[in-house]
Every structure is written in C-alpha cells, then in structure tokens.
C-alpha cells in the first residue's frame, strides 16, 4: 500500500525544548492511523509539526512527493492536509454557514463540496444561520470537522475529537471517520483512550518521549492488550 504521508527522522522543538526526536511515521492511503501515548509524549506536537505550526528542525515530512516542511504553514492546507485541533476552536462570532464558507474559500471550493460536507453532518444544515458559539459540544466538533473537510483534504489530522463528548456523539464522530475512509481520506487520529480508538482505527502508533516506538495493526492490539499497558499505562 502506498504512503499518503511520511515523517522521516523528524525532530521538532518549542524553542529550546525538544519534543520530537527522530520521529518516524507512515500513514497509508485511505487508512485511519491512531497515535496513542501518555500526556506529553508528543502526539499533538507531531500533528502541529506536520502543519508547520511547530517547525521541524531535522528530517522530512512528505505528502506524496511534496515536502511539507519546506512550505509556509498556510500553504500546508492548500497542499491537501486539514487539521482539526483539540478544543475545536471555531470562529464563535460567525454563523455555522460562515464558518463553512471560510473553509471553502481557501481552495476555491463551491456548492458541490459544501453539499457533500453537509451530507456528512445533516444537523449542521438545519443550523446554518446559528452562531457557532451557541452550538453544543458535539455539534461544534462536527462543525470543526466539516470546516476542515471543505478543503477536500487527502489527509485529515484529528486531535482528540471525542474529548468531553457524550457517548452518542462519540459514536457519531466514529461513524464519520469511518465514512471518510470510504471516501479515500487518510486520517491521523490522536486519542488518549484506547476504547475510543479500537472501533475505528486500522493501525495504532505508540508514541513515547517524542518517538514512535511501535506501529501495529489494530488486530494485534486486541490480541495483546498488555501492549497498551506498556506504552500508555492504562487498559
């Protein structure tokens, strides 16, 4: 299977504090790859490094043939990578419709993309004129994902999308991620909880001290639950 995105021996740092150290990762076409690890392991930093928000000081990040770490941060989404950060970060003063329009404008996408995205999140279609700051947590997460999908990305980065959501909403988010896989979108999913990952992930990468210690198929994780104890400290 060909790689959608590759990180080769990537180092990155916040100022003088190095977080990623020789980080390797391969995201295959159309798969859902989950990053698991303790707090501070470097999961979120890995996503931010891909987006150029934290500069890579060594190594390469490739999207197909495009070297992402040679691009300015605002050019990375145009290359085909969309990022939904932890905590959603909507433009709360703008309406649902305006948030979606902002997503569409970057790559000049039109009504077809908008409709396709809203088909994934029908509840948003009913709230287009509502201020996004007044949506529930689950709806805000859906809008954050919808806005990112307006870019029609090849690769989607999701940072703890189920954090703080009720179970029915978590199930809905999982279904959406699975639906995106059917559309050929490759996804990197950062999660703290294993139970949130198993139903949707194809592979899991265990992150520890800024390194990818091991990447395994999700079946192997089911067969060997001890692995989770080893890297994450919980079952």
């Amino acid at each position, binding site marked *: 299977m060909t790689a959608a995105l590759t990180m080769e021996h990537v180092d990155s740092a916040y100022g003088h504090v190095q977080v990623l150290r020789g980080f390797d990762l391969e995201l295959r076409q159309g798969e859902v790859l989950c990053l698991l690890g303790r707090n501070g392991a470097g999961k979120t930093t890995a996503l931010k490094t891909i987006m150029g*928000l934290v500069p890579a000081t060594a190594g390469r990040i490739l999207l197909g043939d495009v070297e992402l770490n040679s691009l300015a941060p*605002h050019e990375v989404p145009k290359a085909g990578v969309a990022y939904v*950060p932890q905590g959603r*970060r909507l433009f709360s003063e703008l309406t649902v419709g305006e948030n979606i*329009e902002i997503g569409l*404008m*970057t*790559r000049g996408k039109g009504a077809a993309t908008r409709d396709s995205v809203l088909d994934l999140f029908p509840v948003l279609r009913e709230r287009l004129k509502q201020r996004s700051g007044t949506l529930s947590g689950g709806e805000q997460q859906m809008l954050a994902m919808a806005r990112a999908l307006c870019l029609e990305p090849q690769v989607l980065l999701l940072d703890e999308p189920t954090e703080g959501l009720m179970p029915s909403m978590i199930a809905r988010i999982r279904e959406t991620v699975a639906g995106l896989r059917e559309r050929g979108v490759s996804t990197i999913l950062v999660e703290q909880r294993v139970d949130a990952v198993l139903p949707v992930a194809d592979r899991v990468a265990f992150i520890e001290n800024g390194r990818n210690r091991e990447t395994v198929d999700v079946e192997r994780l089911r067969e060997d639950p001890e692995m989770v104890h080893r890297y994450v400290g919980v079952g």
Partner: protein
Amino acid sequence: MTRLTPSTKSVALHIGVVLALLALNFLLPEYHRGVFARVLVLAVFAMGYNLAFGYTGLLSLGHAMFFAAGLYGAGLTIYHLEWSVWPAFGAGLAAGVVVALVVGFLALRTTGVAFMIVTLMFAQVFYLMTLYFTTYTRGEEGLVLPQETRVLGFPGGMLDLSDPSTRYLVALSLFAIVLAAILFLVRAPYGRSLIAIRENEERMRMLGYNVFVNKLMAVVLSGLFCAASGAAYAVLFGYVGSGFAAIQYSILPLLWVLVGGAAATLGPLIGTLFMFYVIDTASSYTTAHLMVVGLVLIGVILFFPKGIIGTVRERWLPWLP
C-alpha cells in the same frame, strides 16, 4: 405578510441613517450643522480605525499618521503646488495608502502590545517630521488654505466648500460612500475572514489563509479611509496642522469606536457624535469638563459594556451589522 430578512433590515437602516442626516442639513441650526459636518468627517476616520481594530483585532496607536497623511497630502499640494481640490484629494488618498502599506508591512511582523508600540513609534516619527519640516508645514501653527483654493470643480459648475451647507453635504457624501463600502466589505467573504482572523489567527493559517497578507490589506484599507477623512478635513475646514498628527488623534478614534461599538458599522458615527456633544456640553458648564466626561464614560462602560451599538446589538437587535 413577509418578514424582512436581517440583510434587508440592515440595508434599510443604513439608508435611513443617511437620509436622516441629509434632512438634518435643513433642520439644524448653523452651529450644530457645523458640528455635525465635523463629526461626519471624523466618523469616517473612526470607521477606518474600526476596520483595523474592531473587525481585524489590530489595536493600533498610530492611526493619526494615516489621517495626517491624507491631511498633509491634500493640504500641501493645494498650498504649495496650487493643485485643485480633486487631484489634491487624490494625493491625500495616495499618501495614506503608501504610508499604510509601508507601516503595515513592518508593524505587522509584531502582534499585541508590540504592535501598539511599533505603530505609536511610527506615528511619533510622522508627527516629528511635520514639526521638523516647518518650512513646508509651519508645524503647530499649521497652514490655512485660502478660501479660493477650496472650490470643488464639476463639469457643470463649482462648489464653494467653505459654504456651511455645501460643506455639510460633501461631508455627508463622503460619509455615505465610506459607510456603504464598509457595509459591503464586512458582509463580503473578505470581511468574515477578517473577523475570523481576529478570533483565531492560527486557526485561519491552518485553513490555508495567508494571515499576514489579509491583515496588511486591512491596514491599507483602513489607512485609505483614514486618509480620505484627513484629506476631506483639509479641504472642508481649510486647516492643516501638526496637532492632527499627534498621539491624541491616535487615541481619539479608539475612544470613539469603543464608545460607539467596535465591529459595528454604525458604532463609529454614534461614538464620535456622542463624545463631541458630551465634551461640548460639559465644557459649556464647567472648566472641569474632563471630569464630567470621565464620569459619563464610566456610565457608558457600565451600561453599554460593548459600546452603544455593540450592546444594543447584543441585547435587542442581533441583526445589526
């Protein structure tokens, strides 16, 4: 009966405000008509400031230089080069755009408090230049543009800009044009992207927006409107002086916008008008008028925490742009 959409209501309100201001030209006593003409011109300055501060979140302490660039661009070309009003006005606009482009390009490398200080420093440099080149500017004393130079030529005739009614109508025309431009701008996708930048720059970058270029465009547009106000002030009131480049004129538009309502199209007009009359009324009763103004401002902050229009929008009229 069909209900009016928010968009229709908003356009109708703005047209209504302009028509009401037009009617005031015929209703106001001479003194108040003069005050209103000045307020309309300075409200354009505040609208320009609102675009940068209210909509884009750029807290500048240097907008006096954009106003003064327009003021001197128009005033100096009339006074020294004997240009007529139209090209002089154009020179004022061009000066504002060039200054905004250069200052924006350099200052936007900073954010927050640093941006305030950098813009303040640039404005101080501009102010000191107006004092340094006294041969041309006559510094604090300033230049008085002769009445015969303040004539607006049209294919069908001439308008004497020193005539109170003409001055009011020209000020209103400029105000109406800039108000329509701002209304169009903030309802357009570009305006929404400015609000989004104000809310979360990093998120916009992650959606593929070149935040620097968008903010620079906002500063240039803001500079253009402020320069239009300055150029209009020069030709309508016939005075060009260093006082307009001083820090006071960087703080005043901030005050007008905060009192009227930031990121509200009509906020700058209401704020400028309110502050003019509070100061005017208080100073006619007491020499300690600044104390009265301070008390009134405390009241405004208590009862209208988001400015007059901003609070009205939040509490009663959510459709206000």
